């Protein structure tokens, strides 16, 4: 990779990551939290691909594929839990889940 500086790639990935994180923190809707998590993971993918192309290694892409696996697994569990929550609480508001504290 010649023309795109690594620095800028990392900045882009950080930006996306922060946006995702803000989404996870700020949104009350669990579905949006899961989506924001996807944004975060995606941002990590950007960083890995960028780094891989800087070092001219395939490792970055391998890591991206592994992250893809993780994202799939996470979404599966997350959505299943979401359905469970919808059934149980009739709401997706994450703030409903605060029985345990102290």
């Amino acid at each position, binding site marked *: 990779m010649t023309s795109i500086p*690594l*620095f800028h*790639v*990392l900045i882009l*990935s*950080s930006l996306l*990551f922060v946006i*995702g*994180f803000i989404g*996870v923190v700020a949104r009350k809707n*669990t579905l949006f*939290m899961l989506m924001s*998590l996807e944004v*975060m*993971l995606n*941002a*990590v993918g950007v*960083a*890995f691909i*960028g*780094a891989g192309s*800087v*070092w*001219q*290694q395939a*490792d*970055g892409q*391998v*890591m991206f594929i*592994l*992250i893809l696996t*993780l994202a799939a*697994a*996470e979404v599966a*569990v*997350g959505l299943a*839990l979401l359905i*469970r*929550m919808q059934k*149980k*609480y009739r709401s997706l508001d*994450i703030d409903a*889940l*605060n*029985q*345990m*504290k*102290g």
Partner: protein
Amino acid sequence: MAIASNTQALFTMSMVAAILPQLIVAFGATLALLLVAWRRSQRTIAIFTSVVLGMSLLVNMRLLTMPAMQVTQLLKVDGYSSFAFSLILISALVALRMSHSFLKAHTEVHDEYYLLLLLMVLGGGVLVTSDHYASLFLGFELLSISLVGLVGYHRESVYSVESGFKYLILSATASSFMLLGIAFIYSVTGNMSFSAAIPNVIYHQQGLGVFFQLGLLLFVSGIVFKLSIAPFHFWTPDVYQGSPTPVTMLMATVSKVAMFVVLLQCIVAQRYLLLENFQLFLLSFAITSMLLGNVMALKQQHLKRLLAYSSIAHMGYLLIVIIVASAQGLAFTWQSTLFYLAAYIVANLSIFMVIALLQLQGNNGLYQEDITRDDLHGLFWRTPSYALLMILGLLSLAGIPLTMGFIGKFYILTQATLAHAWWLIATLIVGSGIALGYYLPLIFKMFEGRSKASDKTKATLGPKVGRRIDKLLVYSFILLGLVLGILPDIINQFIG
């Protein structure tokens, strides 16, 4: 090219032999899937799982004295990792036994429970042997995802969804942070293997040094999240409380051992400790954990929450070992870490075992969700063996002499003294002082109020099947706690 494709065989038999315990667990997981297809029965799969774990443990014992062995770029097996994996397997076996009675109380076939347990153990096994960020990440995720499944496993429980969600979201966030950290580190160093040397130039490379620092921080915060070290500890009490007790047991033992070992492995190999900032991170983590964990546990009524807080403090103590580690005393660092972990595991298994058994026998033989301080009232007079086990565990956690916990703490103090880390020592002592303020009342509580004979009959209620094994387990852990407290060299033989 960091990892070039080479012509020689990817795997040799010796490599297979080195990761045989993990392979057995992995193979067991797949076989269990087939078994489910063939015959769905709680009993069969439970026995099968314990056989798999037991076989793995047996094979693993043989590896304890083997020389270090690199298995592809990803894994590295040595005596330390084998010892850690044995700890994991033992905890898993105990948790399995406890789960059995727990699951029996609910009407369902729990194939996925056993599968998830196996996968979690596999994740731990990958973690302790990992020598590469990729395997670290995969082990971490395998552990997390299986735990997410286990944490909310008891679906009838009020806490199921809540604890599941909390754990899922937080651990996914943490793992994203960790991954971003790894990505940053990789982008700066160009290598993801632990054993690769970091070129010195990177710190001055066009502002990328910042990203390296940032990456390190993000990576460590991800790991430290799993260790439930302050300030990333928030999930711990809630999830400890909400999970079924055998799962809490697993979380307190398997995941802690695996994460700590991999952290030490990584830090030692990459020599991050030479970085001043990194030292600072760990120092602040350790001090906040020791103080916060103990303070928060102080007036805690809920037993599992209390143990969660105490685990925060304990991981803080253990972090001291990493902070004061030096290249010369590496063997001693490993030895004290593993010894402390062993002590911590034995104590935690003992206490959670009692909690699990109490849960089964609470409320006139019905399953009781929350065990609070008051449930310990007069336990000694009702079931002396449980109380004894609990007392041994608590004393060990408190670090009272003639327990393993004392010796573990003694190791830590020795190392800290050698490194002149007075602040850490002072915090440790203050923390331990506060800790006595909640461990001892628990013990006193067990001796309070000799209750009447009616309570005695209540204690003997509960599921009759398998009670003999439970009893045997209780007695053997009492014995274990006593013997290891008096003769700690038994463990040192394996570590040294």
